[in-house]
Each structure stands twice: as C-alpha cells, then as structure tokens.
C-alpha cells in the first residue's frame, strides 16, 4: 500500500539530509506507528507521502501511484485518495463542523443528498453528534481534532495518515482519538500514525518504526516505545 525505496530528502545541503535513504513497506490494512524525536524526520516523511514535498532521490509508490510519474495537476487527485489528520487540525475557520467535513466530499463532486447522509454518520463515529453547527473556534482541542479525523475519513480513504494527532490533547481526549483510528483501521483502512506519546505506543502494540537522524533506526512488530 505504501512503498518507500531509499528515499532521501535534503532541504539544505549544508545541513545534511532530513531523510536519508529511508525504505519502508506498509501492507494494506496495517496500522503502523512512526516514532522519533523532534527533528528526526517524521514530518518530512509525511510531507513526502502527501506530496507537500518532493524527494531529492528515491522512489515513492502509494496505492499504486508512482510519485515519479505524478504531474502537478494530478496532485489533488492523489490527495483525495489519502486521508490526512494534521497535528494543528487545519480546519477551515469560517466553516461549521458540518461544512468542514462536507468540504472533503464537495471537492470530489458528491451530491447534496450523499453529503447529507454521510456527514452525520461520520460525525457520530467521532462523537460529535449535535455539534454540527458549531464553528471550529467554539470547540475544544479534542473536538477539533475529531472534526479533522471525521474530515479525513469521510471519503473512506484506503490510507489514513495521522501526524501527531494527539500532540495537543490531554490523555483522555488522546485516547478518544486513538480509538477512532483503531476503529477505522478495523474497517480496512491502512493507518500511519506518528506520535510522541509513549503510553499510546506501548498500549497499542502495533508495528513501530523508529526514525533517528533521518534514518530508519528500527522496525519492529508489536513493539513498545523505545528511542
């Protein structure tokens, strides 16, 4: 589902590569946790996957799409196939909860009826029923993150990338978010989660990929937090 082959990303030649010949293979329906200290290269890895950045060298194939052959105008089509949850939520500030989630469907041209039947169901999954008309400013951090998750999953993507989705949340809300991700994974979505949260990694007991200084330092199944 996700294949990285000796991917290197260098922003500034004087500073050395942010990612150095990283290879990673994620199978469909897998739940992979990526850990690493700040500046290790986790965010760069995710930015490469969402094609916010282009690798300096190496190959990336996601869901059968070879990034080398991807033209700029096809990038929106790629992004529609991947659900992304950002650490800073990236909600549209002047739209309601419902509209934020509906936006993901609007951009693929879904009908009004489709939107009106799908969005409430997804908001129900992330426990936001009754808050459809709230603006992002009126929500707590945990609620905003759940809106972001609802938006990421509403198109039922095959791949969900979550960049430190619990980074700004208290333990209770952090676990709410992780449970939603597990639920989505159970439905068949491949999940790639980056986190700093030791407790979450240890309790999840999933495959853990550790990145250090831009390289894959370890890749272990059913692993615990260890840097």
């Amino acid at each position, binding site marked *: 589902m996700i294949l990285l082959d000796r991917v290197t990303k260098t922003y500034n030649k004087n500073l050395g590569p942010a990612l150095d010949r990283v290879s990673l293979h994620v199978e469909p329906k897998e739940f992979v946790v990526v850990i690493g200290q700040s500046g290790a290269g986790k965010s760069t890895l995710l930015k490469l996957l969402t094609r916010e950045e282009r*690798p300096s060298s190496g190959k990336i194939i996601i869901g059968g799409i070879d990034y080398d052959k991807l033209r*700029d105008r096809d990038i*929106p*089509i790629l*992004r*529609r196939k991947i659900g992304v949850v950002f650490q800073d939520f990236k909600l549209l500030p002047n739209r309601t909860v419902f509209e934020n989630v509906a936006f993901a469907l609007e*951009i693929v*041209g879904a009908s009004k009826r489709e939107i009106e039947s799908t969005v409430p169901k997804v908001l129900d999954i992330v426990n936001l029923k009754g808050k459809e008309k709230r603006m992002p400013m009126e929500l707590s951090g945990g609620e905003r993150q759940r809106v972001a998750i609802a938006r990421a999953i509403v198109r039922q993507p095959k791949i969900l990338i979550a960049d430190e989705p619990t980074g700004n949340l208290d333990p209770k809300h952090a676990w709410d978010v992780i449970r939603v991700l597990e639920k989505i994974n159970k439905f068949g979505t491949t999940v790639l989660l980056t986190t700093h949260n030791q407790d979450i990694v240890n309790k999840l007991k999933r495959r853990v990929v550790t990145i250090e200084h831009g390289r894959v330092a370890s890749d272990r199944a059913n692993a615990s937090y260890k840097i």
Partner: protein
Amino acid sequence: MKRRFITLGRIIRTGMVNFVRGLWLALAAVAIMVITLTIILFSVIVNATFGHTVDQIANQVNVSVFLKDNVSDTQAKNFATSIRGQADVKRVDYLDKQQAQIAFINQNGGNQTLQSAVVETGNPIPATIHVFPRDLNDIVNINKFLSQSKYKSLQTSGSPSYNGDRKKAIDNITHATNILRRAGVAAVILFAFISVLIIFNTIQMAIFNRRDEIQIERLLGASTTFIRGPFVVESIIYGILSAIVSVLLINALFVTASSSLQATSFGLLDIAYSQKFFEAHYWILLAAQLGLGILIGTASSVIATRRYLKFKTPKK
C-alpha cells in the same frame, strides 16, 4: 457534466457565503473600490466636459476665403461646392457681398463709425466663404487646397485668412486643444491605472488574510478552480456593488449639489453639460463601471490566489 454543475453551484454559493461571513472585510474592500471607481467615473465625466469645452472653442475657428468683386455668384457657389467636397471640411458658409456686409455690421454692432464708413464707401466687404474644418489639425490641408492657383485667382490678396496673426492664433488654439485633449485622456488613464493598483492591492490583502484557508484546501485535494472560484465570485460581488454605488454616488452628487457645483466650476467646466453627459450616458457608464469592477475583481483575485495555489515542490 452533472458534477460540473454541482461544483459550479457550490463555488458560487461558497463565494456568497464567504462574502456574508466576512462582511466587515468585504465592506472595507467595497468601500475602497467605490472610492476608486468613483474617481475613474468622475475623471471620465470631467474629461468629456473638458473635451466639450475644447470642441466649442475649436468649432468657432474657421478659414475665411475672400472673393474678388469680379467673381460671379455662380463661380463663387461652384467654388464653395468644391470646398464642401473636401474630406477635411465640416461646414462651408457662403456669404455674398451683401450678406457679408450685414454680417460685418452685426459683428461690429457697437462701432457706429465703422458701420457708417462701410455703408458710405459702397460696401468694400468682399463676398466670403467661411470654411470650418472637421479637426483643427486639418486647417493646413484646407489652406493648401484653397491656395491652388486655379482658386487663388478668385481670391483677394489677403485670402485665405490662414496667414499672419490669424494663422498664429489658429495654430496656438490648435496646439492648445491638442494638448488639452491628450492631457484629459492621460488623466483618465492615470486615474484608472492608480485605481486598478489600489483595487488589486485591496483584494490581495483580503486574500492574504485567508491564505491558510487556501493552503488547507490544497492539502485536502481541492482543485485550483474549486479553491479559486469562491474568491473570484466574492471579488465579482465587490466589483458589482462598487460599480453600482459609484454610479449612484455621482448621480446623487448631480441631483443634490448641481447648483453649488455650478457656482464652483471655476469658469472652466460646463457643469450643466457634465450632468447632461452623465444622464445621456447613464446606462453605458453603469455598464462600463460594472465591466471594469468585474474585470479588475476577477483578474486581481486570480493573480492574488496564484501564489498560494502553487505546489511547493521544486523540480528535482
């Protein structure tokens, strides 16, 4: 096809909703556009009025052809007809000796001595053809035509009148009107250019405030049209509202302050003509303002969104 209509409908709706939700910012942008479009409209009206005044001066300039006393009425009329046939000539007035004398007496109504001298000397005023040019710059050509030897033989020694002090005066008027006309057009272009820059910057500022929104939509996989469309719609709304308000403002100015404007017209501008011009071209001016507002709004929003829509992926 159905999806395209759905998307188009969503773009328009989102643009309108964004306008309402960001009403204060939208009103600020509209206010600036109203001011600038009003300045453009105002400069167009002033230019038209100025042009009208210049035309009035230019219309009075003519070349006079004085005919010898031995030229018969038929010869004179044939000459007048051939002058009329010239492309540069707007109007030709032929006055026989008697009519020329009456015209002279009328022109010098206050000078009794001159009048009685003319009568007593048995009408020394020659039959005259007044030639009015289409454009003051055509006078040289007309003069050349009149000075051909076959016509010159019909004229008195000082004819045609485009010579000496009179030539100098006509040349000065021609030069001045040329400069004034160009200055008027240049002023309109300058005001329009400054206004376009101001409007462009206003819309760019409004979009700059929402650049994060554009980038988020980009990350979620929205197409360029889907992201840009609502901004374009919003800017078009700015343009339409501003154009209507600017025309209404000028209208209100003429309705409420016409008499005080007359009083402060510095003797240069014919305010009554301004009002007449505005009323006669009301719908054209409104359409032009709408077109300009929509065009600038669209172009500004397309250019302003472009930088935030670029994929941050430098080529390998």
